[in-house]
């Protein structure tokens, strides 16, 4: 006698996948039909907006762009019984809700190097946790701490200090330069305001709908579709969220307007890769004041602006390729004073010396630029053999937008 559970399993196991020919044939026919359909029914030729919005969440999604535009134009499309708000309105309300907080803590996970600039992404990288704590004060900037495994930035209310942990490199600046979290999507007030502005300017990229949450509360979901800032062939393509075609999905509590979830998917030709996800959001919590002070190790190396050298003209005259060659040659000969001329810091970290000292230059390629990088920045392809024997092939980033007017290392090691 065959047990019932076995039969259930047997039925579940029955699979009938299409062979490759069938798959290609049917999908080809479907794509052809879709193309034909697009010609006959271009997007936008839809029935009345009001019927759409009244009927179901999914049609709200499709119509939301038009709704947003209508709200911006102050067209009273909805009555109070259909409280559908534009994406711009929701983001403005969310920004206002953030401004009323006393504190918050956000933990996100991003596919990024663990000690990088909180913004670089890589589709193949592992997820790295990034925490942001903010204590609002009477001061404009408040106090905050931004931290990932290899780097931390603390704003104590007077100025901010960044510590790159493995190298003990430190940068201290007055007040709160937004650059640390400008692209990190953790400073909620800034994020909401920025998205609200974009939703006002480009409503068609924003879609929203409401749904019932697992907690029984109503949620507002906003999907933001964004095109990459750089062309498809650009070196920086998919290396930053804004340099990729991507989709952001925000989820707010409909009543409190507080952010509850955020996921970001990068589109490639073949797939959507989740590169960013909110894993924890806490509002109005007691934060340990110790979070907003940073104890530095005794042997820190400080970042500083490049100084004008006695022979600065020699360096100013260098082409990107010459500068890259000079930099790697100095590493090869372990001439750290020379290396320092390209670094803009008080000394060369021992970790840096151990890694690059005694390298062998195999090839320096032709420099190129990216529309997503500073206008005076260049990428120089290189191939070197490290002392360990490992051959490294990458692109050195050099930029010249500094008071000394000579090339400075900006990444790519």
């Amino acid at each position, binding site marked *: *006698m*065959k047990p*019932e559970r076995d*039969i*259930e399993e*047997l*039925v*579940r*196991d*029955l*699979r*009938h*996948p*299409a*062979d490759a020919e*069938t*798959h290609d044939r*049917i*999908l080809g*026919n*479907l*794509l052809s*039909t*879709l*193309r034909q*359909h*697009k010609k006959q*029914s271009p*997007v936008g030729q*839809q*029935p009345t907006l009001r019927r759409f919005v009244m*009927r*179901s*969440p*999914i*049609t709200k*999604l*499709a119509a939301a762009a038009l709704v947003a535009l209508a709200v911006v134009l102050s067209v009273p499309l909805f009555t109070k019984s259909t409280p559908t708000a534009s994406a711009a309105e929701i983001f403005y309300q969310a920004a206002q809700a953030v401004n009323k907080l006393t504190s918050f803590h956000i933990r996100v996970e991003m596919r990024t190097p663990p000690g990088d600039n909180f913004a670089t992404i890589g589709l193949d990288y592992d997820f790295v946790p990034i925490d942001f704590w903010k204590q609002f004060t009477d001061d404009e900037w408040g106090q905050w701490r931004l931290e990932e495994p290899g780097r931390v930035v603390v704003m104590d209310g007077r100025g901010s200090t960044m510590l790159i942990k493995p190298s003990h490199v430190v940068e201290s600046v007055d007040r709160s330069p937004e650059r640390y979290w400008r692209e990190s999507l953790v400073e909620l007030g800034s994020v909401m305001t920025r998205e609200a502005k974009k939703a006002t300017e480009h409503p068609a990229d924003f*879609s929203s*709908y409401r749904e019932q949450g697992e907690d029984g509360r109503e949620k507002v*979901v906003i*999907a933001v579709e964004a095109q990459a800032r750089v062309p498809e062939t650009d070196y920086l393509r998919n290396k930053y969220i804004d340099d990729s075609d991507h*989709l952001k*999905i925000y989820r707010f509590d409909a009543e409190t307007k507080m952010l509850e979830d955020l996921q970001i998917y990068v*589109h490639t030709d073949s797939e*959507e890769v989740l590169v960013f996800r909110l894993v924890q959001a806490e509002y109005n919590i007691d934060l340990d004041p110790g979070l907003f002070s940073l104890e530095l190790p005794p042997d820190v190396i400080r970042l500083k602006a490049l100084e004008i050298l006695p022979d600065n003209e020699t360096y100013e005259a260098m082409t990107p390729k010459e500068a890259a060659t000079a930099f790697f040659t100095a590493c090869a000969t372990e001439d750290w004073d020379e290396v320092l001329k390209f670094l803009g810091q008080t000394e060369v970290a021992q970790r840096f010396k151990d890694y690059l000292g005694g390298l062998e230059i195999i090839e320096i390629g032709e420099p190129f630029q990216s529309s997503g990088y500073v206008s005076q920045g260049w990428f120089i392809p290189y191939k070197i053999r490290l002392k360990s024997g490992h051959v490294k092939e990458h692109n050195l980033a050099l930029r010249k937008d500094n008071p000394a007017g000579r090339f400075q290392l900006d990444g790519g090691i």
Partner: protein
Amino acid sequence: MTMLEDRYLVWQLKRGSERALCRIYNQYETDLLTLATHLLGRTDQAQDVLQDVFLKFIESIDSFELKGSLKGYLATCVVNRARDYLRRARGHRAEPLETAQAVETRHSSPLQEAIAGEQQQRLRTALVELPDEQREAVLLHLQMGLKFRDIAHMQGVSGKTAWSRYRYGLDRLRSLLNGQAET
């Protein structure tokens, strides 16, 4: 695939996204083809049903409203279309699954594969013997993961009746398989 992804893909498809169509098709092709194949007992017709369902889906996408899961919706379409085929072909049903060799198995050793292959062939034969509504209930619940509430809605009966059809279907399958094993 989550409801949110479904909704987003449908939204993209409404905007004419070929990528969204590919993702939806690739996601559900095997499940729907398996369902159609076992509802109809014929691979060629199952492929036609699959294509018909997606063509209709594309043609009606402008006014389409997703009220539940996309998988559930597409499964409903497959069931309805398969019923049309069965009505037309009633009395002319082919031998079950003439392309049994194309069926994917999940077993590693040759012996396991052989045993599983034989079991599956017997199961496919037994499935064809079930009344249509019992076969639908069994396949929709076990292969598509649909709840009895949804199956009931699809069949226009109460949830209890859908559940009963599923139980009767399983009992009948067990009886058929055990009967075959004893002969």
